[in-house]
């Protein structure tokens, strides 16, 4: 039985490798900039949702405030670059570390809350941060920050002529987030997190330090989310509070995982691949005034999935997990 388990882990790794190679080859055939743009966003949300899944899926602490970490990553990267000339690579890393630290500082009081109360706290904190950034003059307040773009440069991680470098970075980020999850899944932390999600009292009786487990999950999750935020700032080269810290980002990180299968390795990727192109396409087909339509699409998908496959779409591929996410 031990070998069956190891085989499944190896198979996951091989499948992921194949997908990554296929994804890397797609731009050779797809030259359309608009489609490439959607692919970049899809990969970015796959990575973000994978990060969200670590705290909310595996450890069971549902966060609807991850926009905070996304925004912190974006702002740290943009501010360090525009104000101090720090290269975005260090900016993203700094944003990740700051977000991880803030996630733990917020977790200290919030992880005493259970269930819905925790979810409400995450929403309120992210909204508060949004308001703070809207009124923080040094950080551009509501006007935001324009990142000056002076031609293609890997050093400054900005590209004008082609979106491809962004695409490959987003792909790498998605791969890293997936690999981190894959590795954590079969580690002490992975087991502790799932135990905490299922039954904190029983976990505590088996030597699991529940509070520390939640803190660890929050730190890893926030770190990866902030890297995604830093990437996004470089990708769009203009940020303002609403466009990187708005509530819709919190939703967009949670939804792919929920759609694909919460607390599963493949759920976030699968969910992002379906959800992001779908919403981008509906938005562009319906046109300028259709700002609410993508939300209608999310709503419909969530209703359908909760009726037909409450465990998420991954349930279609592995019958063994059918009961898992009940």
């Amino acid at each position, binding site marked *: *039985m031990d070998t069956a388990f190891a085989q499944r882990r190896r198979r996951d790794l091989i499948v992921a490798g194949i997908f990554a190679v296929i994804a890397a080859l797609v731009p050779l055939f797809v030259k359309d900039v608009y489609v490439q743009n959607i692919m970049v966003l899809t990969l970015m949300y796959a990575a973000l949702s994978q990060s969200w899944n670590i705290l909310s899926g595996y450890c069971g602490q549902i966060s609807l405030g991850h926009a905070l970490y996304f925004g912190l990553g974006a702002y740290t990267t943009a501010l360090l670059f525009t104000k101090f000339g720090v290269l975005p690579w260090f900016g993203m890393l700094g944003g990740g570390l700051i977000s991880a630290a803030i996630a733990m500082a917020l977790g200290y009081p919030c992880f005493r809350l259970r269930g819905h109360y925790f979810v409400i706290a995450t929403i309120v904190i992210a909204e508060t941060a949004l308001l703070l950034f809207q009124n923080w003059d040094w950080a551009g307040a509501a006007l935001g920050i324009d990142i000056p773009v002076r031609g293609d440069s890997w050093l400054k991680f900005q590209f004008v002529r082609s979106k491809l470098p962004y695409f490959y970075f987003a792909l790498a980020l998605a791969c890293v987030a997936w690999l981190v999850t894959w590795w954590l899944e079969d580690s002490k932390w992975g087991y502790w997190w799932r135990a905490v999600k299922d039954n904190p009292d029983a976990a505590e009786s088996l030597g699991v330090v529940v509070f520390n487990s939640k803190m660890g999950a929050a730190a890893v999750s926030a770190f990866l989310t902030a890297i995604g935020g830093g990437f996004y700032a470089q990708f769009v080269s203009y940020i303002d509070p609403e466009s990187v810290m708005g509530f819709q980002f919190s939703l967009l990180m949670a939804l792919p995982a929920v759609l694909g299968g919460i607390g599963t390795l493949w759920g976030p990727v699968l969910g992002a691949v379906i959800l992001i192109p779908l919403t981008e396409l509906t938005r562009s087909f319906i046109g300028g005034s259709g700002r609410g339509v993508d939300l209608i699409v999310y709503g419909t998908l969530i209703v359908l999935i909760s009726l037909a496959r409450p465990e998420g779409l991954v349930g279609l591929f592995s019958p063994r997990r059918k009961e898992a996410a009940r």
Partner: protein
Amino acid sequence: MTALLETKGIWQRFGGLVANSDVSISVGRGEIVGLIGPNGAGKSTLFNLIAGVYTPSQGSIIFDGEDVTRLSAAERCERGVGRTFQVVKSFETMTVIDNVIVGALIRTTVMREARRKAYEVLEFCGLAARANVLASQLIPSEKRRLEVARALATEPKLLLLDEVLTGLTPIEAQTGVELVRKARATGVTVLMVEHVMEIVMPLVDRAIVLDLGKVLVEGKPTDVVRDPKVISAYLGDRHAVGA
């Protein structure tokens, strides 16, 4: 030989309710001790105090020569206290073996090692055939055994069993009794709370009877069941006079 577990003058109050008053018990190494008593006697409270769910209002708990009164449940687990829950608390979305691995991980962080250990414990508890089934799919008696398996995977010196035999069919209960004996044979000390006397009396070396939050009687099971005080606590004074 010093006792493995000792409680010294434990008091536990919940608001105005005194659940344990001046409870001092001791459990020797290698013993199987039964903690019995009628409903509301304070068994579960004492049990949870020993497991580290609550901190007593007064008194101290000595485990393996160390004062553990202020330690958390997780810290006590690390020192060798394993427990089960009266209302089973399986990790429902995890497989049976994964449930046990969580317990094994307190002694090793090498996953291969933890997995091997978990499988061994499942074999010991007769659950190996169900290793890859989700815990939510187990029948009640298997869930009880999973509770024991999970606790044993933490390699406890003291195993606390909270009504693991209650509500089982006679055959299932017999299997449970054998499992407890087997566990003791490996050197584990057992303290078990039970409500139903017939099941535990043949199993335990010593019985401690609690009533109204106090230790009423303690001694050999055969003596305890004949004690008029015990009979009156369980059945009321009228029967005690008759006996």
